[in-house]
């Protein structure tokens, strides 16, 4: 990989980290993690369970917010503001540019998620909870999810403007997290109209539940690391697909 890819990755990371939007989003997520303790006080028992539940959900929302506000806006805004012009008129192909942006965005997402996870674990330990290795599974799942969301955000950013790209990212997130429930409806529920469609969608579309270990962590279900590995592989494959799509779209886009 040429150095220009890493140069773009570095500048993307630096730009994002210095942007106020990222800090606002991170502070909100950290606030939710801290506030989850208050919610735990409302329950009769299981206060630490609630702390972990809401914190992990908060981190998941952090990942989505970052993909939406930083990822989707990143590429589309570069085109709209024409900062991409000064870069793409150099010795760098559009595919390399997309890859560099992706690596930079993934760096941003992972930094924030890991920092959020550290806040969560520190808070949990302060309130008497322990460090469970299972929690790492949830974190790894979140990191994998951010890989795919970043690729999707770039795909939509290459396709359309910033706002629509953000909306597209959210819609994808909702779809990818709903497939499992839709599939369950066809198996366990009464006769569902269009069941064949849900089953087909479940087989062919990306499923973020493959790397969702939040529920397993908080609810004492055992974690299967081999499942996480398979899920990560699946997510990686889909990420590559979306990146290739982003590259193809961006190659045809007139600046």
């Amino acid at each position, binding site marked *: 990989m040429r150095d220009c890819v890493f140069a773009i990755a570095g500048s993307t990371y630096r730009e994002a980290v210095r942007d106020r939007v990222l800090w606002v989003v991170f502070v909100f997520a950290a606030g939710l993690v801290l506030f989850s303790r208050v919610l735990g006080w409302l*329950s*009769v028992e299981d206060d630490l369970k609630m702390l972990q539940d809401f914190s992990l959900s908060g981190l998941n929302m952090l990942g989505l917010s970052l993909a939406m506000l930083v990822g989707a806006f990143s590429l589309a805004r570069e085109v709209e503001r024409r900062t991409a012009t000064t870069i793409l008129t150099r010795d760098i192909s559009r595919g390399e540019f997309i890859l560099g942006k992706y690596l930079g965005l993934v760096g941003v997402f992972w930094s924030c998620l890991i920092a959020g996870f550290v806040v969560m674990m520190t808070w949990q330990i302060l309130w008497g909870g322990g460090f469970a290795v299972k929690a790492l599974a949830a974190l790894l799942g979140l990191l994998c999810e951010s890989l795919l969301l970043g690729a999707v955000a770039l795909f939509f950013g290459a396709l359309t403007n910033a706002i629509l790209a953000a909306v597209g990212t959210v819609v994808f997130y909702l779809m990818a997290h709903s497939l499992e429930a839709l599939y369950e409806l066809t198996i366990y529920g009464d006769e569902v109209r269009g069941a064949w469609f849900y089953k087909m969608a479940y087989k062919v579309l990306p499923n973020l539940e493959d790397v969702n270990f939040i529920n397993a962590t908080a609810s004492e279900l055992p974690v299967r690391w081999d499942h996480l590995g398979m899920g990560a592989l699946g997510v990686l494959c889909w990420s590559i697909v979306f990146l290739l799509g982003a590259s193809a779209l961006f190659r045809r886009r007139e600046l």
Partner: protein
Amino acid sequence: MIRLLIALVCIGGAVALRGPLAKANALRRAHQFRYTPDPGLVKLASCGHRSSLADLLWLQAIPDLSAQFADLEHKERWLAGVLDVVTDLEPTFVTVYAYGSAYFDLIKGSPDSTIALLEKGVDRNPESIQLRVKLAMALMTLRGDRAAALEHLEWVMNSPDCDSFTAGYCSSILVDDRQDLVALEYWKEYLDSANEQVVGVAKLYLERTRQGIFMRAWEEFQRVEGRRPFSLEELRDDRFLSPAITDEVLACAILTDDGRLQFPRLVEEEFLRVQQRTKDWCEAYHVEHGEWPTLYQLREESKIPLPRVPEGFELRLENGQLEVVTEGS
């Protein structure tokens, strides 16, 4: 300056509206509408956040377990639905099964629902010793199904995670043919509940169970010995009472000098229960009619059986608070 005055006037107006708005909100709260979600759709709507959504629904349900609802049927529908949804969203949420079964048993009074919920919990958490023990005791106490209960208790004792205390407790249940220990321990389980209403009901039923066991032992003594016991200590006998429960059962009764039996704690718990029910009924009456009911209205319109008071005393009802006072005071 004018802008500041306008701002102050608006703040004052908003604060002044707080009073009437609070009353309007209170009326809405009294209506207590709850939407019971469909389990399938809730899973869909959770978008992968099943645990958190289960927690949120459970947090909403907790205060409703013992809250007074104007429409009781609606409350029951809502709680049955939400417990179903929460346990579907998060099958390993053991607390929900435990508290939910307490609600069904003590507040709603539905043994079938109690056992159904516990069975669901055991089915989805087969390794949970807590739920198996609860289910075993419910099967024995509420349904009298000793065989099914024994099956669960034996599993518990053979489980590698079973601690010595639980193993000893289970084995003593197994050897108690009269199931007295089961009956007492069943209600004692609820005494640790954070729900005050559940604790109150459990205390009453515990005293009633102690009285029931006592009276059975008393009658057995009379049948065997052909006479009434001269003292309570005569009942301290394996033939009438299991050693594990003798002390606490004997402590619930008093044998007066003239040979009368009294159960002061039971009387006290029953009165406390009547007081609580009276208070709840009066508060609902007050919300509906805008005034507190009289003792006469309480007798005629509510279904609460009021206690008989000793001579020289009378019942008094004031602002929903029922008390026993000296006549004429």
